[in-house]
């Protein structure tokens, strides 16, 4: 049984089990209140599932891509929750959960998952389909692009079916972790996928104040 947390878009928390599927999920599409929501989300998901941290075998973290501030709340919570209950942290690329959900609900074939990166930019990941275990096969990305670039003929994945996701389901993320683990797939790196440098400029020295 796993606790899964994703704040790459809204805030989503779930308790999942390989055999029982998604046992409880708490999600909101609100992209402004991750820090407020995360605690109640975890508590309610655990309570509804009737489990305590002791019952878990790991904590799944959606590592993004996602806009900075919100993404960090979920990763911080997942990392520290795992530390607090002494369970392993299982990092995954958030877009993979979107693709997994798509294929699990009957979708097939090539896919381009797209999410909002703010500042008039988009995050994208390209999938060739799903493997026999039902796991999405990511062949490119995650990447960052201007919206027009995804429609440009030069974009290698312009022909793929495009799925614009506004939410990432922690239930899907958790089940992806369960099935991926079962199939012996590696987890992602334990690094947040910002895909952008902090936008700061090095100071050019003091400005004049007088005339």
């Amino acid at each position, binding site marked *: 049984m796993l606790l899964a947390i994703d704040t790459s878009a809204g805030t989503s928390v779930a308790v999942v089990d390989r055999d029982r599927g998604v046992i409880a999920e708490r999600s909101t599409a609100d992209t402004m209140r991750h820090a407020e929501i995360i605690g109640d989300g975890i508590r309610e998901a655990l309570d509804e599932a009737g489990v305590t*941290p002791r019952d878990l075998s790991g904590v799944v973290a959606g590592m993004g891509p996602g806009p900075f501030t919100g993404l960090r709340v979920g*990763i*911080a919570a997942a990392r520290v929750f795992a530390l607090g209950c002494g369970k392993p942290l299982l990092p995954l690329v958030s877009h993979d959960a979107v693709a997994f959900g798509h294929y699990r609900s009957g979708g097939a074939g090539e896919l381009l998952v797209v999410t909002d990166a703010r500042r008039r930019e988009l995050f994208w990941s390209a999938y060739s389909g799903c493997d026999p275990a039902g796991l999405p096969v990511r062949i490119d990305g995650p990447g960052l692009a201007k919206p027009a670039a995804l429609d440009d003929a030069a974009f290698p994945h312009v022909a793929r079916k495009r799925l614009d996701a506004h939410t990432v389901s922690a239930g899907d993320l958790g089940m992806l972790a369960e099935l991926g683990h079962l199939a012996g797939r590696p987890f992602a790196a334990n690094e947040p996928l910002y895909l952008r440098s*902090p936008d700061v400029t090095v100071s050019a020295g003091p400005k004049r104040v*007088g005339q």
Partner: protein
Amino acid sequence: MNHHEPLVLGIETSCDETGVGIVRGTTLLANTIASSMAEHARFGGVVPEVAARAHLEEIVPVINQAVATAGIRLADVDAVAVTSGPGLAGALMVGVGAAKALALALDTPIYAVNHLVGHVGADLLDTTGSGGPLEYPTIALLVSGGHTSLLLVRDLVSDVELLGETIDDAAGEAFDKVARVLGLPYPGGPEIDRAAADGDPRAIRFPRGLSLPKDMAKHRYDFSFSGLKTAVARWVEQRADAGEPVPVADVAASFREAVVDVLLTKAVAACRDYGVPRLLLGGGVVANARLRAVAIERTDAAGIALRIPPLSLCTDNGAMIAALGAQLVMAGHAPSTLSFGADSTLPVTDIQA
């Protein structure tokens, strides 16, 4: 839970220090800090996004180190405390998310506390014996790169009043900006202090912000450092334009004197006005040797008892947050509900969110 001497873990991420402290009642067990200061140096000031990224990378290692230093197990913790404001929003959110998750994983209550009141709480952990426990009421002068506040503390967990604060730059920020004007590296505080050592503090009379009679009516206990910073920059420019060498030591000493003078003039005035013979200093600028020297001088002359916690408890740290959390537990305050957020402008009267 142990309400008598609770074991509290405090998390602080309001600016560029990732701090985790562990206390048992008023006994300090661990005060672990990872600072991203070096990463901000080339930008000449704290970059919020850089600070927030560093918090996310440091939070788990810092908790682990604090637990090891304290010689406890995480499972022994009675309560988690966290800074919910004021501070940099994105930075605060990392600590808030982490603290909520920790409290849930450990099944402990959580206390969301005010960073500024935490600075006052740090004094409770001062076991080096600067004169017994903190007495009330006390005036507290908190000076750092992020804040410059004058508080009247009647009771740490229930009655803190903001007497005044900076209306523009924090004092620490002014040190950073003036250091740049003088071609000194970031952070400016220690650099100015070093440069000022051979300077004459009376060489140049720089302005004391909000000290004129017309300002004192409305801003008796408020501070302003932006005019001072501009005055220093203008003075230096005029010197350079005239082709004369800039006497860095004298400028640094005179600037520092202006800051220290206005800080302590207003703090001592608050002590007098409110009949409070106690002054507590906090915040990273307490590292400034001249500030400490003038504080001792002026409080001695005015018959005010001065308290300065050790520097490791004056700069932003998790131990002060744990100390305040422990006070709230011991006073029987109910924990915070899980729905609090990061509040970058949390007023000092909100001791607990």
